[in-house]
């Protein structure tokens, strides 16, 4: 794209906050093989009290238009919190639209209705296969049935921004067409596909990673889905894709962490998105002013030049890729994964 590098610099300078993740709990009822955060049912770290997060929202509201910022409850599994609907209601009262990312296990129709009444306007449910494959991946029998119920219910709500997210691995790679047909039958409009990145449990099970051949096939599958038009398939933010840029997403790749996306982690640390290593934390809500941090820090998120080392140093795609997604970097900024290598 002509002048794209200039536009990216402009975007970094303007950095309009559009999505704010709140890692409201680390507790999770499932035991997913690919989990990047190693959650457990009784995490040692306590949930963050809503009042602590609300102080951040009140401060943000003083400076920005709250209607422009989507607050997303993430975890862990956010529905492990009994007070989630109350939290949502209070977020809505402050004028912020809100949504959540969930495994769907506790998203019964009753719970979904309670959340919708509390102002939920966006939701993502994870589904990693049909019954056998999903339950295997999620580590708990019956997970598919629960996710299925949640998906069918939420897909029927016209005012909800709803999508299903699927992690593609060796296990479900051969079932993509069946999963697609299932989602279409469930009247799901949007399907976001991603692949495992080597962090948390995802790093210890290399068989979850696709081979380069499978990865290319996956890209072709998404391209074909998009051409077919029966469901809006797209690839998640797992980095720059070279020849597939513009073909598998609605936009060209740029890591939005720190440009339009921020997060408040369970310990109060302020970062880009919740998948990024903790060493990239830019401050903490318990000692820093969020708006000051958002406006004046986040330097590495807005200028990736220090990442131009190792395999990126001489890469001909640097200008367009800008060092890949921030969550694909290790504690010291080293590149953990470059999916583009699988496509060249």
């Amino acid at each position, binding site marked *: 794209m002509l002048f794209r590098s200039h536009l990216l610099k402009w975007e970094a300078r303007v950095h309009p906050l559009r999505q704010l993740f709140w890692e409201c709990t680390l507790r999770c009822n499932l035991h997913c093989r690919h989990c990047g955060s190693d959650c457990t049912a009784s995490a040692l770290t306590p949930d963050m009290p809503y009042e602590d997060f609300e102080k951040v929202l009140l401060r943000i509201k003083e400076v920005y238009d709250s209607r422009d910022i989507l607050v997303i409850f993430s975890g862990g599994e956010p529905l492990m919190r009994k007070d989630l609907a109350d939290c949502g209601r209070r977020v809505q009262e402050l004028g912020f639209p809100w949504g959540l990312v969930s495994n769907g296990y506790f998203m019964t129709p009753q719970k979904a209705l309670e959340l919708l009444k509390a102002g939920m*306007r966006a939701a*993502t449910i994870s589904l990693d296969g049909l019954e056998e494959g999903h339950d295997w991946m999620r580590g708990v029998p019956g997970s598919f049935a629960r996710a299925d119920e949640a998906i069918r219910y939420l897909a029927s*709500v*016209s005012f909800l921004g709803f999508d299903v997210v699927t992690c593609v691995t060796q296990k479900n790679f051969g079932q993509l067409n069946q999963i697609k047909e299932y989602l279409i039958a469930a009247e799901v409009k949007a399907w976001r596909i991603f692949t495992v990145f080597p962090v948390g449990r995802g790093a210890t099970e290399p068989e979850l990673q696709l081979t380069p051949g499978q990865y290319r096939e996956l890209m072709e599958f998404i391209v074909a889905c998009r051409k077919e038009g029966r469901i809006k398939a797209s690839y*998640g933010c797992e980095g720059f894709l070279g020849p597939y840029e513009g073909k598998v997403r609605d936009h060209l790749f740029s890591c939005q962490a720190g440009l339009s996306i921020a997060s408040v982690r369970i310990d109060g640390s302020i970062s880009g998105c919740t998948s990024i290593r903790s060493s990239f934390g830019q401050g903490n809500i318990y000692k820093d002013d969020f708006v000051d941090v958002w406006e004046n820090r986040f330097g590495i998120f807005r200028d990736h030049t220090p990442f131009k080392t190792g395999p990126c140093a001489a890469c001909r795609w640097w200008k367009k890729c800008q060092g890949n997604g921030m969550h694909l970097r290790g504690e010291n900024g080293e590149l953990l994964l470059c999916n583009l290598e699988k496509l060249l």
Partner: protein
Amino acid sequence: MKKAFVRLLCLLLGLNVFTACYGPYRGPDQMDPEQIEQELKDLQEQEENQGEPEEEPESSEQE
């Protein structure tokens, strides 16, 4: 109007400032609040007609 123009411009230029990246995408902006209210009422009626008990997570107390 100005916001819509900037949004359109960004989309045309390939910038994803206004689109979801990792989390869910926003619901429709222009939805009529009355229409939402009516749909919620319909969902409530549907729920009351079915009347199944709700299941809560076992360990959902805030720690």
